C-alpha cells in the first residue's frame, strides 16, 4: 500500500471520546485512499510505542485510540487535546519527509466455492443485475480488496470496494442464520462470516478456511489486501477436512 502526500483528501479532525479514548477522523466516506491514510496513521502511532495507549481501532475514515488515564497523565506535560494534535502534526511532518512510504501489508488469497448451494443469493443477484452467475464470480474474483476494518463479530473484515456492476444492498430483513465461512456482499463491501450468526449480507459463496479462532485469532487485520479465487465443491470438501473450522 502506498501513501502519497499528494493523495491527501482531507485533514484530521480530533474528537476526545469521553475520558479514555480519542477519535481521529477524515472525510466521512468509504474510500480506499482515505482508509489507507487511516492505516498509515495507525502504523505511525503504534511505532511510537506509547504504553499508555491500550487499543488502536482503525475504521473506514477514522482511528480511535483507547488510553489508560493514569499512565497517560503521568506521561504528558500538555493536555490530552494537545497530545492528540501533536500526534497529527508529527504524522504530517513524517509524511513530508518520507514523500512516499510503503506500508507493509499482507496479501491474503481466499479460496471460495461459488456453488449455488453455498451462494444462495447468486441467482437473485444475477437476475437483478441482468448478468450471469459466472460473470458475478468473475467480477468478484477479479479484484484485490482492502480490509477497511474488522468488527461486528470477532474477525469479521469489512473489505472493498466491490465493482459497481455487482453492488447490491443488504437484505431488508437479515437472515436469522448465516453459515460460518459464507462470503457476502453489501453495497461497495464484501466480507466473510467468521462463525454462524444472523446476517443481512447477500451470500455468493463459502470459504472452507478458518476466519477466526480464539487461539490463532483473526485471519484478517485492518489494512490487509485480500483476493478471492474460485474452487470446486470437491476442493472445498478436501480443504475443509484439513481445517478445524470453528463454528
Amino acid at each position, binding site marked *: 500500500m502506498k501513501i502519497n502526500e499528494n493523495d491527501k483528501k482531507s485533514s484530521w479532525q480530533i*474528537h476526545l*471520546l469521553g475520558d479514555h479514548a480519542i477519535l481521529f477522523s477524515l472525510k466521512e466516506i468509504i474510500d480506499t485512499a482515505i482508509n489507507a491514510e487511516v492505516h498509515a496513521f495507525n502504523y505511525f502511532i503504534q511505532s511510537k510505542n506509547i504504553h499508555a495507549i491500550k*487499543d488502536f*481501532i482503525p475504521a473506514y*475514515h477514522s482511528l480511535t485510540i483507547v488510553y489508560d488515564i493514569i499512565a497517560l497523565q503521568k506521561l504528558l506535560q500538555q493536555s490530552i487535546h494537545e497530545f492528540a494534535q501533536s500526534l497529527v502534526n508529527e504524522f504530517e511532518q513524517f509524511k513530508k519527509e518520507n514523500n512516499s512510504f510503503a506500508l507493509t501489508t499482507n496479501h491474503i488469497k481466499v479460496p471460495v466455492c461459488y456453488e449455488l448451494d453455498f451462494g444462495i443469493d447468486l441467482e437473485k443477484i444475477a437476475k437483478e443485475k441482468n448478468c450471469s452467475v459466472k460473470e458475478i464470480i468473475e467480477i468478484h474474483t477479479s479484484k484485490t480488496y482492502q480490509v477497511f*476494518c*474488522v468488527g461486528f463479530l*470477532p474477525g469479521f473484515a469489512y473489505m472493498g470496494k466491490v465493482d459497481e456492476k455487482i453492488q447490491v444492498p443488504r437484505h431488508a430483513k437479515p437472515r436469522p442464520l448465516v453459515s460460518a465461512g459464507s462470503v457476502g456482499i453489501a453495497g461497495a463491501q464484501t466480507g466473510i462470516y467468521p462463525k454462524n450468526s444472523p446476517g443481512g449480507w447477500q451470500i455468493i459463496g463459502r470459504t472452507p478456511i478458518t476466519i477466526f479462532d480464539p487461539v490463532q485469532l483473526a485471519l484478517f487485520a485492518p489494512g490487509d489486501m485480500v483476493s478471492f479465487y474460485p474452487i470446486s465443491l470437491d476442493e472445498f470438501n478436501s480443504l475443509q477436512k484439513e481445517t478445524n473450522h470453528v463454528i
Partner: protein
Amino acid sequence: MSFKIIKKGIADSWQDAGNYGQQHLGIQVGGYMDFLSAQLANKILGNAIDQQVFEIHFPASTIEFEEAIFIAITGANFIPVLNEKSISINECIKINKGDQLQFLQPIHGRIAYLAISKKGPKEQVNPELIEHIESSLFNTSPIRFIPGPAWNDLTAGSIQHIMETSFQTTLQSNRMGFQLAGPHLSTIEPKSYLSSGVTKGTMQLLPSGQIIILMADHQTIGGYPNLGQIILVDLPRLAQMAHQTPIHFRLCNLTTAHEQFQFIQTQFTN
C-alpha cells in the same frame, strides 16, 4: 478454582479488568461491569485490585467451596447466606471446606462480586473507602457524560430532553449495553454515519429514537450516532441500576472526569 457451582445462575462469569489490545480484530474488551465493586472485593482480601473476580447477576449461582479460603462479596446486595446463615457484604469472610453460599433475593443493585484469597488480608481496609464506594454506587445524582461527535447533530429539543428529562433503565440491559426508555430523540437531518470506534459508556442513538449505553461486552465499532460517553467513574453506578431506575444526565468536562478517576484509583492503591 476453589469452588464448584451446584446450581448455575443466569449470567455469572469470571471477570478481570478486560482484555485490551485486540479491538482492531473485532475482539471485545469485556471485563467487569462495575470496576469499583470488583476492585473493592479484591482490596478487602489484600489481593491485587485487578485480580479475577466472580461476577454475579440475580438469580445467582449456588456455590460449594472445595477448600478453606477467604472471600469478600461486594456490589449488589442479594442477601448472601453461608450454610443458611446470613453473612455481611464488604467484609472478609473465612470459609471452610464444604461451605455453601447462596443468594436469596435482590435488595439493591444489579451485580455482586465475589473475590477469593487463600491467605486472607494482612490489614483491614479503610472503612472510609467502603463508605465512599457504597455512596458513589447507590445514589440518585445525575450520570455524567462528555458530548460525543454526533451531539451537535441532535435537534435542540432532543438536547433539552437529555439535559432535563428523566430516562429509565429497561429489560433490554445486559453486559453488552443498557437500552434506556425516554422521550423520542432525533438528529436534525436524517444522516447515516460510517462505523467508527466506540468505548465503554458510549451513548448511541438507536433508529427507534432511544439511547443505548455500551457496557463491558460492547462491539468494537458502531455506526449509530455517537451522542457522548459516560465518564468512567459513573459507569459502575449505571451498571448497578436495577430495571426501571430513573436516570438523569449531566454534562461533564474532561478535567473533572480525570480528576475523579485519579482520586478513586489513588484510594485503592494507598
